[in-house]
């Protein structure tokens, strides 16, 4: 018996584990308290959606694609609709474009608040978790008023949006945003000052800007490493080129910076919603498109709450897609997660920090494995 090899133990976490909201398996290699390696298994969520999409028409697929992820369902349908519309080569009416942004930003606020609660829970600050989730009900109420359902909204349809808004609803949205804004500012203050949050997140889960770029990280994970990258700004879709907003970055490169980026993004999203609601163009909300899509292949990108979401559709001219590929932000962030967990001696990763690090990329395994499975990683 020799050397240090016998000191390395495997610790499995999952698939059913209190720290995981979704089935996934992490095999941690630990040396004492320190994590030295990690292996991921996301096959628990693999459903076979990409294959099933080849057997459904474009309209049926809208409802299948929506169920890749319940949290970012607005972003999923938006990306899919953008792809099908560009296959037809058609633009949608300006009013529909603005309404899509409203739905997208409300769902982003919802997703970030949900995540903030989960992160607080992983930190061990359950009071904060409960407060955040109570305020999250405001955005769910707005989503229900806008689309008719709290979570799975089916708001985007091919060629526009499903429901129009009334003056009454717009003032309700304004009121909801006014209610939410001071709460989010208060949370920001707590995150900046609370000792238990600072101790559990500062210097934890470090991802250097170089590593973030090299591993093709996306979304808030990338922006928290100080890199200014946002699909809404770089490759604008809908009316994002007409709606002013700032790309939020932070240079902490740790879990704390990721919390701050998301909180600032909520404030930015509130401003964007207000802008859209006050400058909503008049006109139709739907442009009817034929059932059969012309032959061709298209790629579309959207900034989902977790980062860049990508769809590829190849059409052979029939009413069903030949191939439909979905690439989700969680899968893009997995290599970054592995770097955060395996420090290679540069700094120490304790087992106790693993849930916080995992939560800090906001994993959604149902998106990641979707696709061909569902995901979120």
């Amino acid at each position, binding site marked *: 018996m020799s050397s240090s090899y016998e000191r390395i133990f495997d610790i499995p976490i999952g698939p059913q584990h209190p720290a995981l909201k979704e089935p996934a398996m992490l095999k941690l290699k630990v040396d004492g308290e320190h994590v030295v390696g990690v292996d*991921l*298994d*996301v*096959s628990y969520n*693999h459903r*076979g959606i*990409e*294959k*099933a999409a080849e*057997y459904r028409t474009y309209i049926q697929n809208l409802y299948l694609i929506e169920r890749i992820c319940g949290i970012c369902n607005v972003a999923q349908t938006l990306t899919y609709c953008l792809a099908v519309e*560009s296959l037809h080569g058609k633009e949608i009416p300006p009013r529909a474009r603005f309404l899509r942004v409203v739905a997208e930003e409300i769902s982003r606020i919802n997703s970030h608040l949900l995540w903030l609660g989960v992160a607080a829970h992983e930190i061990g600050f359950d009071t904060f978790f409960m407060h955040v989730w109570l305020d999250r009900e405001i955005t769910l109420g707005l989503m229900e008023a806008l689309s008719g359902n709290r979570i799975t909204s089916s708001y985007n349809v091919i060629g526009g949006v499903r429901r129009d808004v009334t003056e009454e609803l717009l003032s309700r949205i304004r009121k909801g945003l006014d209610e939410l804004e001071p709460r989010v500012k208060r949370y920001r203050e707590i995150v900046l000052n609370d000792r238990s949050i600072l101790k559990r997140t500062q210097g934890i889960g470090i991802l250097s800007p170089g590593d973030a*770029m*090299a*591993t*093709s*990280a996306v979304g808030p994970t990338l922006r928290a490493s100080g890199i200014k*990258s946002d699909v809404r700004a*770089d*490759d604008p879709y809908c009316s994002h080129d007409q709606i002013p907003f700032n790309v939020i970055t932070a240079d902490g490169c740790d879990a704390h910076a990721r919390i701050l980026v998301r909180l600032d993004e909520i404030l930015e999203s509130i401003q964007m919603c207000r802008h859209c609601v006050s400058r909503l163009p008049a006109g139709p909300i739907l442009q009817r498109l034929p059932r059969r899509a012309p032959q061709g*292949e*298209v*790629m579309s*990108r959207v900034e989902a709450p977790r980062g*860049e979401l*990508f769809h*590829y559709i*190849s059409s052979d001219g029939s009413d069903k897609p*030949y*191939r439909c*590929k979905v*690439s989700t932000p969680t*899968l*893009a962030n*997995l*290599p970054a997660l592995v770097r955060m967990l395996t420090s290679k001696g540069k700094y120490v990763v304790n087992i106790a920090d693993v849930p916080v690090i995992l939560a800090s990329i906001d994993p959604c395994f149902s998106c990641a*494995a979707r696709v*061909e*499975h569902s995901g979120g990683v």
Partner: protein
Amino acid sequence: MNAEEVLRVLSGAEGIQDVKVLSERRILLTCSREAYRGVVGRLAGLGLSHVVAITGVDMKESIDLLLHLGSSLMATVRVRLDPSDPKIATVSDMLPGAEMREREVHDLLGVEFEGHPSPARFMVSEDWPTGVFPLRRSFTPSAPEPRRSSPQ
């Protein structure tokens, strides 16, 4: 950086079979299997080193591998592989972001990535039969057999 710049740099490159500008911010390049790594390296040198996705498509007469690289511009590199021998060199040493995506294509479409650091199964379940690739056109999906008979 814009589409013209990418076209200018790549115009003389070896192994490029076709270049198409799909729209203002989308380019589609087709290259041979041998030239794949070289083309990806040149694009990465231009700043297109962010791996957006890797798509595998079974076109029946070939298996197409599409590597989507992007910043504000998105360039797609297409390689047509022989369905009887779908092998290609990995790019995960140059672009670490490609690692998980190559494993995904390997699991679901059966493309071999030569030189991949960890080609273990990733997406499909542990009891999934080897050699069956769900995204091939020849695969017909059906639900698994129930593990118990439903109560009636």
